[in-house]
């Protein structure tokens, strides 16, 4: 079962609505609450990254028998140095993002912590692609 959602860059009031939809859908399945929280947190962090940094993006989730696969793609400034972006505490977030309670450089490390597989690729000036696998 595959679902896709659009994400609008800079729209902080709608930020999180895609992840919310996925969580709602997954609640219908027999998934352990702890796993559901890991999925929701990973997706929400990824969605807020698009809202905070990119111009537009999408989140596609594929629900399989024993795992969830996720692709979050955006058009945006991309990430210059992925290794550095993965470090805890490193952030390029704006003051606006920080005022919303984010931008502390914990997002990507937290996505890695909450997923079983994570792959991040980016072309500066073009955009970023994040793929995740989370087992049920």
């Amino acid at each position: 079962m595959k679902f896709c959602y659009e994400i609008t860059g800079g729209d902080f009031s709608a930020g999180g609505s895609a992840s919310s939809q996925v969580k709602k859908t997954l609640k219908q399945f027999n998934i352990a609450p702890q796993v559901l929280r890991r999925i929701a947190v990973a997706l929400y962090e990824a969605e807020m990254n698009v809202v905070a940094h990119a111009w537009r993006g999408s989140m596609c989730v594929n629900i399989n028998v024993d795992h969830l696969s996720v692709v979050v793609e955006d058009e945006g400034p991309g990430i210059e140095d992925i290794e550095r972006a993965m470090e805890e505490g490193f952030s390029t977030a704006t003051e606006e993002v920080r005022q919303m309670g984010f931008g502390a450089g914990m997002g990507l490390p937290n996505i890695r912590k909450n997923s079983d597989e994570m792959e991040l690729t980016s072309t500066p000036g073009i955009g970023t692609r994040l793929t995740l696998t989370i087992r049920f």
Partner: protein
Amino acid sequence: MKQMNVQQLNQLIPGTILLEGHASTLYTKAFASDLMSDVLRFQMEQTVLVTGLCTIQVLRTAEMSNITCIIFARGKRVSPDMLALAEEHHITLIESALTLFEISGRLYQGGLEPVYR
């Protein structure tokens, strides 16, 4: 481990209960932060969030982390769209004029525990 419902924990502050989610939920822990990125890092079941940040993203963070009770400190006022989202997800909202420090102190004294030691 001490457990308390919304009414019991609000007696420790006391604040204004704007909205009561699931009345039967029992809380054992509290986490105080204005940084949602940190809230998202820990297991938050049966945990009360105390925060001075008052934006829609606090509600989203709670929803994703399975947090069902939020106390807003320092006299922050909840907006109608925050209230609507809280209603949808059965999240209890409490407003208090006290500082984050004082609310945390009262909850700690009342027996709630940190999310980790």
